[in-house]
């Protein structure tokens, strides 16, 4: 097992490479989801303020 973590003496290069990939992609995915949730929350709040603005013909989307 320690042989696996040692990566043939290249542990200092292999593990950081995988680590930064997972870190950057994870942060990007998380921030994208947070952005969407925030926008949808604000949209729902604004739509609740002006219910009569929504035309029934267009249904839920629009």
């Amino acid at each position, binding site marked *: 097992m320690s042989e696996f973590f040692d990566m043939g003496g*290249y542990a200092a290069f292999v593990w950081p490479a995988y680590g930064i990939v997972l870190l950057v992609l994870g942060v990007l995915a998380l921030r994208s989801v947070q952005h969407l949730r925030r926008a949808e929350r604000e949209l729902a709040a604004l739509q609740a303020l002006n219910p009569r603005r929504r035309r029934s013909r267009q249904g839920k989307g629009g």
Partner: protein
Amino acid sequence: MHRFANPTRFLRIANAVLPWCVSLTAVLFVLGLGWGLFFSPPDYQQGETVRIMYVHVPAAWMGLFIYGVMAVASAVGLIWRHPLAELTAKAAAPIGAAFTFLSLVTGSLWGKPMWGTWWVWDARLTSMLILLFLYIGYIFLWDAFDDPQRAAKAAAILALVGSVNLPIIKFSVDWWNTLHQPASVVTMQGPKIDSAILWPLIVMALAFKAFFVSVLLVRIKAELAERKLRIMRLNQVARENSRLGAAQAGAES
């Protein structure tokens, strides 16, 4: 194509596809990481550092691919003035920038033990760095304008001009002397690397692609919601102004 270009229809399709994309991304990541880190053999020349390739090469591919997506979406937005295309380009840029950044960092981590240096100013590395700057410039250009229509136009022009860089990156290893190894997967003669390392590479590439589609859909949804918010707020301000104007006119008469 115009059938998918309607935002309402797009949202319906995106919501149906998204859970599948996210599941696929998770499965491919587990498979690709397991294969790349545990089951694939070390290279006879590069030893265990060859494992860096499984993240480095797909990240570089995605950096180029996403720029291509961005350039095509920008052209469609510019020619047909289509808001969904403009938002797709805008939503794709940070994902492309992330992958380009990762290809540079992992390449550096591979270059140090194999070439003896973190960085060289050769054609491949420099053109990849320029790609990262193009992404960053594109993202900042969107924020530089108050009017989203003008921002979309300026950003689209930058994206299209910058696409000249794509063939330069691809062929830089053939056109100039470099430390970087030449193309070994996408060549005229087919892949030149052994299937024991080609397969985990392909799985990681698919994992990155599924990740891109998933995050892109989420970001486009967010951009559509933001756009709707902006329009609703403008309408609200306009309504309040006209009410105010009417009240004023009533008071004066």
